[in-house]
């Protein structure tokens, strides 16, 4: 059973698991997915890519940022049957650029194969591959409905920037 105490202006309640079993009747205001103030996910309500998404780490802002943006945009807007098949050059540019900065973009096996998979466009669904293309470690579901909580992830050594 819950147990309550008051210490001056502070109230203390101890609860057991059973006390909290019943669902809460606290009311929360429904979120507006198009709220301009909110932090957006990877894909904006307009369908554009949110380059400032924390989920991208520093990919869009580093030295190879523009190559990355080109490649990724091309893929995102590609309407080919095999999505992104016309973007191979962009991806190659991006890879060449990244190879110049091995410290920033560690050339890992699975990373390379993932990028390869992108350019070969063996993609199950656009949303999923968009998530995995970026970096295996920093994955974030690119949903627009929940505001992805923000923090400029100080990149760890595995994350491309």
């Amino acid at each position, binding site marked *: 059973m819950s147990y309550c105490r008051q210490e001056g202006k502070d109230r203390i309640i101890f609860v057991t698991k059973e006390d909290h079993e019943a669902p809460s009747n606290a009311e929360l205001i429904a979120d507006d997915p198009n709220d301009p103030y909110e932090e957006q996910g990877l894909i904006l309500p307009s369908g554009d890519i949110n380059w400032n998404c924390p989920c991208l780490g520093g990919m869009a802002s580093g030295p190879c940022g523009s190559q990355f943006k080109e490649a990724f945009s091309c893929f995102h807007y590609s309407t080919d049957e095999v999505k992104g098949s016309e973007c191979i050059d962009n991806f190659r540019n991006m890879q060449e650029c990244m190879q110049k900065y091995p410290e920033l973009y560690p050339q890992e096996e699975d990373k390379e194969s993932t990028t390869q998979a992108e350019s070969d466009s063996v993609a199950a669904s656009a949303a999923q591959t968009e998530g995995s293309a970026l970096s295996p470690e920093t994955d974030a579901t690119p949903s627009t409905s929940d505001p992805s909580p923000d923090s400029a992830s*100080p*990149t760890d050594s595995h994350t491309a920037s």
Partner: protein
Amino acid sequence: MLTCRSVWRKLPPLARASSTLCRVGVRRAVLNNGGPVRVPAANMSTGPSGGGREKQLYVALVGAATLAGGVYAYRTVKGDQRRYQERIDDISSRPLKLSGKQTDEPLNLSEPSATEATETPVEATETEPVAEPEPEAAPAPEEPTPPAPEAEAAASTETTEPVPVETPAVDATPALPEVPSHAPYLLIGGGTASFAAARSIRARDPGAKVLIVTEESEFPYMRPPLSKELWFSDDSSVTETLRFKQWNGKERSIYFQPPSFYIQAEELASAENGGVAVLSGRKVVHMDVRGNKVKLDDDTEISYDKCLIATGGVPRNLQAIERAGEEVMKRTTLFRKIDDFKSLDKVSREAKSIAIIGGGFLGSELACALGRKSSEFGLEVMQMFPEKGNMGKVLPEYLSNWTTEKVKKEGVQVIAEALVKSVTFKDDRLEIKLRDGRLVQTDHIVAAVGLEPNVDLAKSAGLEVDSDFGGFRVNAELQARSNIWVAGDAACFYDIRLGRRRVEHHDHAVVSGRLAGENMTGANKPYWHQSMFWSDLGPDVGYEAIGIVDSSLPTVGVFAKATAKDTPRAATEESGTGIRSESETEETAVSPVASSTPAPALVQQRDNYGKGVIFYLRDKVVVGIILWNVFNRMPVARKIIKDGEEHADLNEVAKLFNIHED
């Protein structure tokens, strides 16, 4: 004057009459140049018609009052005049320092073309890679920027090296071209907020050219590990590498990006796709808002299109220590930067005793970190503060007391309710004398008594400084003036939901830096996404918090019994990151490491605040939430604060957090 008034009040029947008299009298006296005061008997209902003695008393009182008033007025005016004169003298002495350099300017302005001609062949002989972009850099900046400020800036950059300009020798200094004369995006300060803004700008403005000017000699780095993870590292070279291993073995550097991320300052103007350049070891000393330019401490000027001020702050010191002289100051650390961490690490190995003054986040974290080393090094660690318990200004009293016990268990001698009166250097040791007479002897002091926001540029820039919270006063969109934004510790901003505030936390620097960067690229968004903060005090106590967490507010705490699984260690293992704010953006590991015992050990004590949620209320609305040993639920907390609703039963709200589960 006031004493006179109180004397008058003691004569009630005459008080009103005589006060009006006095006013009339003083006015008369001033007008008549101190002529005799006459009593206009006709105006008074209680006229002192009878009794010459009373009349004399009146005159005496009024005369005394007039005299006292006159003396007071005279003294005040003289004092003000003196202070004014001192200030004028002070100001007039300053231009003298600059005038020496300024006289060079008109001389060089007359021959900019000649010097430029001599510059380029000189530079061509240099073998540095700088030489190549140089001839480009000279004509290139003129294209994107209007010629007028360009010529000005070019002339002024040349004035910094008056000697080599006049004698065009091969040793034309590389320092000349290093500072670009114009930066589309200029970020003053090289800390967390600045870096977050740089990243945001680069993401949103393709090919953006961002220049970070910092006083420090380091690239941007994050501060939390300096008082947390770096102390727990097993690596003996941690002070050099500044890398820390997280619980799950993943290593990371405290620098946001390795040096190869940044481009050279001199390449900024010509970089095809832009980039972020860091100009280190330079201080911005003057800001010309009207001319959209700043001046550095070496007199170079940089003009900008958009500017961010992210100057952070400087640790406060105790007056007792500042007064105490050099021997004491030498043995005192004001902890904030990498160098402070390095020197404190050295001290912790050499000294026998360290005293930490301050019971807030930094003081408590350092105390716990050093406390853990205390047994290792035979080090005595003490922590003293004026409050009753650790985090006394943040946690409600019961929790503050509980936390203090935990801190003590980390090997720290906690001295609560301690006000430092004086510090002396005696017998090769420091002696701290407290207000209540207690004496504490130690070898080294760490002062963690707050941060003074750096608003040095406010004066020259004509920016408003907030008198309540300190820092630059900015609006809800972090804007101070048209092209100037402020973010991080130095920004006193308007939070739409919670009101005007200034926040000194890492995640706030990230959030506000990002927002400033967005607004600098045209987003026009207010501060809306609430930042969070966290703290770990030893392996058993960790919490995340959001909003206004002030112990003077009424609180409601809902607690469950803790199991062995609810510790900060378990949280970081599960999320795979040491920086708690990141666990929200990085996907939590699918299979939790769960190295903790599978069978939860239930603690039977009733008042064990193992884990729970604490709500801070202001006018019945939740304005702050602490998640006590409950992790990865920050989005729920953020939502509750964002809604700003009055909830009748906070226990129901607490249910949303599922505190009994992992």
